[in-house]
């Protein structure tokens, strides 16, 4: 019984808790909802697939993903990293990110050159697709 539990834990951490980015800069208070817990995020902390990033009033965050894509979020923003998979050696590209509320600036990294068609940037009303790009989004 013990063994099964351990195996399951290893499996779940490698599948779901994948680090995909780091917080390069933070102003004010930024939190992440991960595995039903709310964590305070500090400069240099890693961000995972599945993380929900929440910025408070007068707060912002600058993020760099593993492929060099850059994202910054303004105050009172809600952003979800559904998936950020960029693995050129395995030919696996799947980026699915979502601005629920607030403001964001996104600049694509290697994904913009290698597989731009595999990027989905969601907003409440639709989807933004990219062609090697930098863009701003505001959801009121």
């Amino acid at each position, binding site marked *: 019984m013990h063994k099964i539990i351990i195996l399951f834990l290893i499996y779940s951490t490698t599948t779901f808790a994948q680090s995909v980015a780091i917080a*390069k800069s933070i102003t004010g208070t930024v939190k992440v909802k991960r595995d039903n817990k709310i964590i305070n995020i500090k400069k240099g902390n890693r961000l995972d697939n599945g993380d929900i990033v929440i910025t408070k009033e007068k707060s912002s965050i600058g993020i760099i993903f593993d492929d060099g894509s850059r994202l910054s979020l303004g105050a009172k923003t809600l952003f979800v990293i559904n998936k950020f998979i960029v693995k050129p050696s395995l030919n696996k590209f799947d980026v699915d990110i979502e601005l629920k509320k607030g403001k964001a600036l996104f600049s694509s990294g290697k994904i913009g050159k290698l597989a731009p068609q595999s990027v989905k940037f969601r*907003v409440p*009303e639709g989807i933004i697709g990219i062609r090697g790009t930098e863009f*701003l989004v505001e959801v009121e």
Partner: protein
Amino acid sequence: MKIYISIIITLFFIGCSKTTVVLADNGKTHNAIIVKTKKGSVTLDKVGSYVDLKSKDKAPSKIKTMSKEQMQKKFKDVINSAPAKPISYMLYFKPNSLELTEQSKQLLKKVLKSIKDRTPCMVDIIGHTDTVGSNKINIKTSLNRAKYIASIIKKMNIKVVSLSVKGYGEEDLLVKTADNVSNEKNRNVEIFIK
């Protein structure tokens, strides 16, 4: 007051949010996005062009244009908190060795400073090879070169959040050549600092 708040919440849940999507300047000529709802899609390919989205069941608005100043004003906080663009360096090696060329020895100092300046950061180190000798040995050499550079970075005692080290063989040449061609451009380690 309470009624007012509940109205806002109701509006939000029936999907009356409003989104603005603006194409920003990425410093390249190749720059375009496609904005899609269930009812239609538009392509933005000029810096400052934007559309408003009112609902899933409405097509995006007509394309409008925002000046640089308007962009700066409306998106000040996100523009100011955007991280610096990642930077990449190439270090070159003497044939069949772990010794850097004289020029690259100088550049290495700049690389180390750049890592320090960008802390906290992630660093990818990727070794490449030329085609002199067997591929088996070349893969080993390219990995050893990458490991050698990684060891120098580790010794610096600065906080690198992640350090990835890879070595590529003759099937992933930087400059395509025939077999058994000595090419300095191919004997390199690329350092990608994010």
